[in-house]
C-alpha cells in the first residue's frame, strides 16, 4: 500500500503521519452524514487522530508498508470506531498520568488520556496479528 484506500466505512493508510489528514477528512465526512453535532464530530476526530498517531508511531513503528485501518460503525445511535495496527499492544495501566505534577510539562503522553476523556468507552483487543482499539460515542 502506498496511499490511502477507502472501502465503504473503512480507510486504510500506510504508516506515515502525512496521511492523518486523509483519515480526518474521511471520518468527519462520514460522521456529517449522520447529522451529528459539530462539537461531537470534533471530539471523535480528535480521538481518532490520537489513535492513528499511536498506531503509526508505536504500533507499526512508522514502518511505511505496515497499514493502519480505521473502520466506523453506526449502531443504535452509537458510533463505534476500530483503529487497527500490526503492533503488540501495551498496558494502558503502565502509562504515566499526564496530569501528575511531575508530568504536566512533558510534550508527549496525553493521547490516550484525551481519548478516554472524550469518548464513552475505550477498549483494546490484542491478538497475534496486531492491536485494535475500539472507541464508542453515544449520539443524542
Amino acid at each position, binding site marked *: 500500500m502506498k496511499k490511502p484506500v477507502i472501502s465503504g466505512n473503512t480507510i486504510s493508510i500506510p504508516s506515515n*503521519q502525512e496521511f492523518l*489528514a486523509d483519515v480526518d477528512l474521511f471520518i468527519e465526512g462520514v460522521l456529517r452524514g449522520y447529522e451529528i453535532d459539530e462539537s461531537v464530530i*470534533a471530539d471523535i476526530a480528535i480521538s481518532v487522530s490520537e489513535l492513528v498517531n499511536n498506531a503509526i508511531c508505536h504500533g507499526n513503528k512508522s514502518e511505511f508498508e505496515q497499514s493502519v485501518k480505521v473502520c466506523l460503525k453506526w449502531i443504535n445511535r452509537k458510533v463505534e470506531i476500530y483503529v487497527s495496527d500490526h503492533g503488540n499492544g501495551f498496558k494502558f495501566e503502565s502509562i504515566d498520568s499526564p496530569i501528575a505534577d511531575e508530568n504536566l*510539562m512533558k510534550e508527549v503522553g496525553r*493521547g490516550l488520556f484525551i481519548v478516554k476523556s472524550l469518548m464513552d468507552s475505550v477498549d483494546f483487543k490484542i491478538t497475534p496479528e496486531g492491536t485494535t482499539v475500539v472507541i464508542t460515542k453515544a449520539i443524542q
Partner: protein
Amino acid sequence: MKLSDRVQDGIIILQPKGKIMGGPDASLLHTKLHECIENDQKKVIIDLGQVDWMNSTGLGILISSYTSLRNSGGELKLAQVTDKIQSLLIITKLVSVFDSFDSVEEAIKAFK
C-alpha cells in the same frame, strides 16, 4: 494547517489555521517558533482563533513553545482560545500553565 505570522508592537503573532493533529503541518508551528527565538524575537502570541481543533500533538507544540521561549528569556501568550481547545486545556490541567487572553490586543497589552 496553515500558518501566518506578523509583528505588532515588537511582538510576534503566529496565527495557525485549521487543525493541528501532527504530521508535516504541525512542524510548521514548531519550526517558526524556533526561528523567532534564533532571531531574538522572544515575545510571542499564538492566536488560536482560527484553529478548529488540536490533539495532544498540538498541546505538545504549545508546551514546547512555552518552554523554549521561557528558557531563552522570552514569553508566550495565547489569544482567542476556542471552546474546544479550552476544554482540552482544562482536561489536561494545562490551563494553569498558559496565559490566555480573549483577543490579540489584550495579549499585546499584557506584554507591556
